[in-house]
């Protein structure tokens, strides 16, 4: 029996990426080369953004050579029996390995290692992304040979080319198919968008010849930092290196957010934590985490901050790049702002803001009464509105929200310090990390604060009430914190807290 066997090419693509088009190109090119070929696919509804695969099998002898004999070509990819796997995304490439198609003695893997996140990864309240290292482990070990690239790091013109055309160029360049390059070109010319796809194909071909670029290029040098007031510079200089690394980011931000005095307050708050931090091995884990969370908390997002960020020159420049506006193309930007009764109460002085908020919450108006504003921030009047709102920075320290946040920060720090001072450093660290629950705006923010309060009350405080040195206490707080990020309704959190201690009262549904 003949030793010849079909060449099997498996294409893994996501809906809308043109995997079917690529299949057609390969089939057409093989047909042009007079090679027996068969392509199959299972698009189904996967064309709607789902992952799917396409299989092409090519017999390495021409029809003329075979003289009427017809090879049997497969309908399904074989386990460890595919010669080339082409993938356009990291996890999909790993999936091809996991499904067993990639073999260490046969398979060339051509894959883009960028991530396109799946919905389950995107929708997490914190960071639900799959650990890319796990995928890379398979990509490094399983295939016989790889051509891996990050499409965003390729030199032009390869960067920006459609991945199907680029992959076809890489495939042709890899030289594993007995199909001349000209047959591929002819196939592209007979298909969709021939000009751009030919450019992509040639770019891939060139890359295959020159070799794919190595790891990422060196980062561009950063612009000089804003000067810190002298006093802050002195105070900061006394911080240990690992805390200083955080403070160097935090201090200019706090100055910009509020004032130099506010930044000083940050350092004052950090002082006692540093003193209570045993810093095992010279590593200030607790202080660094508190420094990070404290900076974020002290720069809490209110309308003034949003206006400040949205009206900044840096943002305007970034935005133009982001939407790929060319030089000389006007860009009109519309902001979706919806200041409500809550935001108004936040800005008023405490003696007015607190009763207003209480009334709005009592009567259910808190999420209802608001002003839907569409601000054209690139127009002069729209910009002025943001600009003037940002000027309210000086007023901020007199607002109800400011008083509230500072009190909450103080309470949080007190809990951390109490734990740290009695030697429960891991517990202190976990309490510090709970500040990550506080984020977002409006409803999201209220929910975050509710979750934070629940964790403090039902996980942290019982731990503090118990005798010091309970090794399981930090784990319980960490579990509660993670549970608070499991679902927006806090169902998981309540269940977790109930399993830890007495159940808290049921709260309203959210989202």
């Amino acid at each position, binding site marked *: 029996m003949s030793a010849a066997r079909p060449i099997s090419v498996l294409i893994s693509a996501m809906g809308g990426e043109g995997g079917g088009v690529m299949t057609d190109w390969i089939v057409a090119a093989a047909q042009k080369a007079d090679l027996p070929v068969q392509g199959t696919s299972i698009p189904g509804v996967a064309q709607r*953004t*789902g992952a799917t695969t396409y299989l092409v099998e090519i017999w390495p002898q021409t029809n003329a050579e075979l003289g009427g004999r*017809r090879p049997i070509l497969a309908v399904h990819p074989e*386990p460890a029996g595919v010669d080339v796997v082409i993938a356009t995304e990291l996890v999909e490439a790993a999936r091809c390995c996991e499904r067993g198609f990639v073999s260490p003695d046969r398979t060339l893997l051509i894959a883009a290692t960028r991530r396109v996140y799946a*919905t389950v990864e995107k929708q997490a309240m914190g960071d639900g992304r799959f650990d890319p290292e796990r995928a890379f482990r398979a990509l490094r070990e399983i295939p016989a040979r790889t051509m891996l690239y990050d499409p965003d790091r390729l030199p032009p013109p390869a960067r920006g080319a459609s991945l199907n055309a680029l992959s076809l160029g890489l495939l042709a360049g890899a030289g594993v198919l007995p199909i001349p390059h000209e047959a591929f070109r002819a196939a592209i010319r007979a298909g969709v968008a021939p000009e751009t796809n030919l450019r992509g194909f040639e770019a891939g071909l060139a890359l295959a010849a020159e070799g794919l670029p190595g790891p990422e290029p060196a980062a561009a040098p950063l612009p000089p930092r804003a000067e810190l007031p002298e006093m802050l510079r002195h105070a900061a200089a006394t911080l240990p290196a690992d805390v200083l690394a955080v403070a160097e*980011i935090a201090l200019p931000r706090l100055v910009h957010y509020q004032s130099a005095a506010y930044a000083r307050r940050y350092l004052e708050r950090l002082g006692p934590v540093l003193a209570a931090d045993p810093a095992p091995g010279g590593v200030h884990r607790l202080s660094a985490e508190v420094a990070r969370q404290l900076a974020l908390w002290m720069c809490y997002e209110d309308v003034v901050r949003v206006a400040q960020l949205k009206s900044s020159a840096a943002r305007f420049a970034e935005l133009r790049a982001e939407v790929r506006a060319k030089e000389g193309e006007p860009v009109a930007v519309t902001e979706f702002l*919806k200041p409500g009764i809550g935001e108004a109460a936040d800005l008023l002085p405490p003696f007015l803001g607190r009763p207003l908020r209480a009334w709005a919450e009592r009567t259910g108006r808190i999420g209802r009464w608001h002003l839907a504003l569409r601000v054209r921030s690139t127009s002069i009047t729209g910009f002025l509105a943001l600009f003037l709102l940002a000027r309210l920075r000086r007023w901020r320290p007199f607002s109800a929200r400011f008083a509230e946040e500072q009190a909450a920060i103080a309470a949080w720090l007190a809990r951390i310090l109490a734990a740290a001072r009695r030697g429960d450093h891991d517990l202190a660290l976990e309490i510090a990390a709970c500040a990550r629950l506080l984020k977002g705006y409006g409803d999201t923010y209220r929910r975050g604060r509710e979750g934070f309060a629940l964790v403090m009350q039902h996980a942290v405080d019982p731990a503090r009430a118990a005798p010091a040195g309970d090794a399981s206490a930090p784990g319980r707080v960490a579990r509660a914190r993670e549970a608070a990020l499991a679902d927006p309704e806090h169902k998981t959190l309540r269940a977790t807290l109930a399993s830890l201690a007495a159940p808290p009262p049921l709260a309203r549904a959210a989202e």
Partner: protein
Amino acid sequence: MERSFAKEIALLRKGAGEVFEGEGILAIAKALLQSGVSYVTGYQGAPVSHLMDVFHDAKELLAELGVHYAPAANEAGAAAMLAASINYPVRGAAVWKSTVGTNVASDALSNLASAGVKGGVVMVVGEDYGEGASIIQERTHAFAMKSSMWLMDPRPDHEHLVPLIEKAFELSEASSTPVMAEVRIRACHMRGRFIAKDNVKPRYGTHAPIPEPDFDYSRICLPPATYTQEKDKIERRFPAARAFIREHRLNEVLDGDLNDVGIIVQGGHTNTVLRALARLGLADHFGATRVPVLVLNVTYPLVPEEITGFCAGKRAVLIVEEGNPDYLEQAIAATLREGDIQTRVIGKKVLPLAGEYTAEVVLTGLVRFLEGTMPRGVDVAQVARVLEEATAPGRKAKALIGATLPPRPPGFCTGCPERPVFAAMKIVQREVGQVHVAADIGCHSFATLPPFNMGNSILGYGLGLSSAQAVAPLFGEKRTITVMGDGGFWHNGLSSGVSAAVQNRTDGVMIVLDNNYSSATGQQAIPSTRNSRQDVPQRLPIEQALRAMGVRWIRTQGTYRVKDMVKTLREALTTKEKGLKVIVAAEECMLARQRREKPRYAAALKAGERVVRTRYGVDAATCTGDHSCIRLSGCPSLTIRDNPDPLRRDPVAYVNNDCVGCGLCGEVADAAQLCPSFYRADIVSNPTPRDLWWMRLRERVIGALQRWAERRNPAPAPMPAPAE
């Protein structure tokens, strides 16, 4: 439909001796024309939609041949159209997705099969089973058995597929019985080639009318004719079919020297079995096998002589039969028992009862079979080693990855007009609490997946409203919501759902997603299609149909304004008015719209015209990484990326450049009061002098203010992240 099928139509015109290179389902279309069909019908659905799309556009060719083509309102309608072949010597064909389509068709099919046919009838059923399938997993086989129709399962390559479809018409005529040709997803989408024959003009067709109607009571499905028909099936049609199958060698025997065992395979799995044998060194790649194989291109009826003839003298046969129940295995075992042949029948003992027969499944089953039967001349240890080597890399990869890879099921497209409806439902449920959602078939079924997780049951195409009618009263005052697409509405929803709801005065809400096409199946026209490439005027608006049915509370509403949709939904759920309340959520399918708009935009851009491109974005600086926007929108272009803030860890939301500017993310952020991070950017290409004048003025004023602010309170420059 916004696509052109000119290339495909050219394929259907190929004449004798020309090479046809194209998709499997088109090869079948060509086979129909080569068989001289008079009429073709069907109902769209993967994997057979393409045939209908091409026939729909091939009016000229069909007119030349005298072939009548008309898509049916549903599969029952398609099956009923086959009645033309009951009385008249005309060949007809229908296509649909199976088993769901066959389910719908089965009322008409029972009658068709009982009456029997004069002209050949072939139903091409796209078997939507296994990976890529979108429906419940069942077998079509049972329909053939219960109605005494014949079932073909052709070998999946064009050179076998085309002649077998042609033979199917002859088999149908020889035995007066309709024939189903079961073609799996991969075979339908297969790219391959065959040598074409000329298309055949039917004797009767649009070019040549039938002279006289035929009346023959024996063709009527009423007693006493039905008794005669049942008898005729047994006494005449079955034997005639078996004789035809045997004489024309529709099933194939591939002989081999290891003849103490054998394999009986459904035609559709032949390639997989031959490849597995080749892997084990027991076959070459041209179909020469050492283990004898009986290929059943016709799986119903079986020809007992073929079975006994193949099995006689063998110790054991392996039955490769996908799905359950194991009809073939049972039938073969019974046949052998009757013939007193002692060959062991092994099928589902080594192959799974449920699930697709992939290469790995078949290879594993085959190895288990060889290990169990130890045929003379097979090195069983070697065979086991091949399997071990074939499966080891997959196991190793799994171990290396060591975690579940995130699944990537299909979902709503970027800019899909249906997504905002579910976002609105989510927002309204925050106020009124969770409600029972009766889902339906269509793209909108994806709402049952994250991030919406919406839909309590799916009962079939267009049956959502019917499925809610016993649920609704159980919830008392709290109303249920039925979500139905326009495809489902016309397929079955109007006739079975709306009519009963009106008659029974059912209190509830139905949302009809009117996106202008039967979109999930490939944007085919339906009665309410407003316009399409063919410029068909709208024939029957959904609202008009609902009014005619007696529905009083109807609101037609665009979908992208989430706030308005929320308001309408809230009203529908809380109004005092009893009865069925229908919201027609009308907005064109974005895939179709983009197919039309994109070239138009590109042409205008090239011509130097002023064009405005709209897209949305997220300010990374104000995004706190909570992702509630993603949970409410689910748009593929709304994704995440590393947080540029070195102090934050959670990724920020980000709109990538696939954004088509539908505005849902901004709308949702606004309607649900999520956050101020979204912005809309309108980018003007080829700006006019006036545009540029304004741009310069604005840049000057805004720039001056920004510089002033920067001087007073400089913004910190970006910093690298501190080490962990």
